[in-house]
């Protein structure tokens, strides 16, 4: 039966990725394009400044994939594969927790696990290291940023598991409601401490103090090219969150009923006997 459940998790994840892709294609891609246009304009201004100062001008390498491929096929494949990966992890956790979590119905369990996946694998890391549209970010800090982001992801998962274990031990003494509150508080406090300790993105790039491109100034200090548009950044981050909400909601809503059918089919003898 675990194979059936995993297969359905993959299906739910792929569908979630597909819906998130449709959303991304309509709402996020125009922002990606405007971010790339900004970058192109900024590079041009930088080149002009360098030339005026007598510095060597950097030339860009050839494009590996055209924008049309990246903005349609590439983002589609990326979102669906990510959805499949999340659906697979979701199905494994579901299979292991099945029947081990007390009186929770099949669908409710699916909703809870999808919520936990969204929270730990995306939202908590996002709070510390939010998504950036293309054109934003320092090439020199990519190693550090990737490491820190993955550390946040792994730590969030560990913190939630720890909080759940604590909650489970306290439940008989405090009751389910209060034990859940304590476990939730433990998760928030642990995450907050880690976030306070880790460096933020702006601190990594040193002198600039920001990962987001600042206005470009000429030697006299006049702004010759504006900083990255704040609206584009804010909207892109909002759409990043919404894409993940769509993905995880789809996984919960599609997988729940499918799992219920598998469970009912596999336990007919007992169900009939008790009916």
């Amino acid at each position, binding site marked *: *039966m*675990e*194979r059936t459940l*995993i297969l359905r998790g993959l299906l739910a994840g792929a569908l979630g990725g597909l819906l998130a*892709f449709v959303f*991304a294609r309509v709402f*996020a891609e125009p922002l*990606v394009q405007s971010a790339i246009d900004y970058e192109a304009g900024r590079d041009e201004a930088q080149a002009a400044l360098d030339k005026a100062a007598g510095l060597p001008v950097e030339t860009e390498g050839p*494009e*590996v*994939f055209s924008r049309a*491929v*990246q903005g349609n096929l*590439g*983002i*589609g494949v*990326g*979102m669906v*594969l*990510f959805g499949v*990966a999340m659906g*697979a*992890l979701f*199905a*494994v956790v579901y*299979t*292991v927790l*099945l*029947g081990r*979590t007390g*009186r*929770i*119905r*099949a669908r409710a*369990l699916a909703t809870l696990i999808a919520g936990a996946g969204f929270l730990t694998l995306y939202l908590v890391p996002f709070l510390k*290291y*939010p*998504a*950036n549209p*293309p*054109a*934003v*970010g*320092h*090439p020199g800090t*990519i*190693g550090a*940023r*990737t*490491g820190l*982001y993955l550390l946040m992801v792994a730590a969030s998962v560990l913190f939630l598991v720890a909080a759940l274990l604590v909650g489970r031990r306290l439940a008989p003494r405090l009751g389910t409601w209060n034990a859940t509150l304590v476990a939730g508080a433990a998760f928030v406090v642990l995450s907050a401490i880690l976030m306070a300790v880790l460096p933020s993105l702006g601190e990594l790039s040193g002198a600039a103090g920001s990962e987001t491109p600042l206005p470009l100034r000429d030697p006299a200090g006049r702004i010759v090219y504006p900083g990255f548009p704040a609206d584009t950044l804010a909207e892109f981050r909002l759409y*990043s969150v919404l*894409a*993940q909400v769509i993905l995880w909601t789809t996984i919960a809503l599609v997988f729940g009923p499918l799992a219920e059918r598998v*469970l*009912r089919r596999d*336990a007919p003898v*007992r*169900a009939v006997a*008790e009916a």
Partner: protein
Amino acid sequence: MTSIPAERSTPVVLPVSKAVLWLGLTVLAALLLYYFVGVDQGAVSVFGSDTHVHEFVHDARHLLGFPCH
């Protein structure tokens, strides 16, 4: 509308020891996918310093919240 009553809500407890091979393989495959979509050819690379994977899923990587560039 038939629904499963709460008392036998999740009636099956799978012996995880028996399913461990499938569950393990699934987790491994999922982590590989996560790695290729989100991390490969950014900070580190499995197949040398080529940028095809990175460039292809580039927009998805940004929107999914992975650090890039």
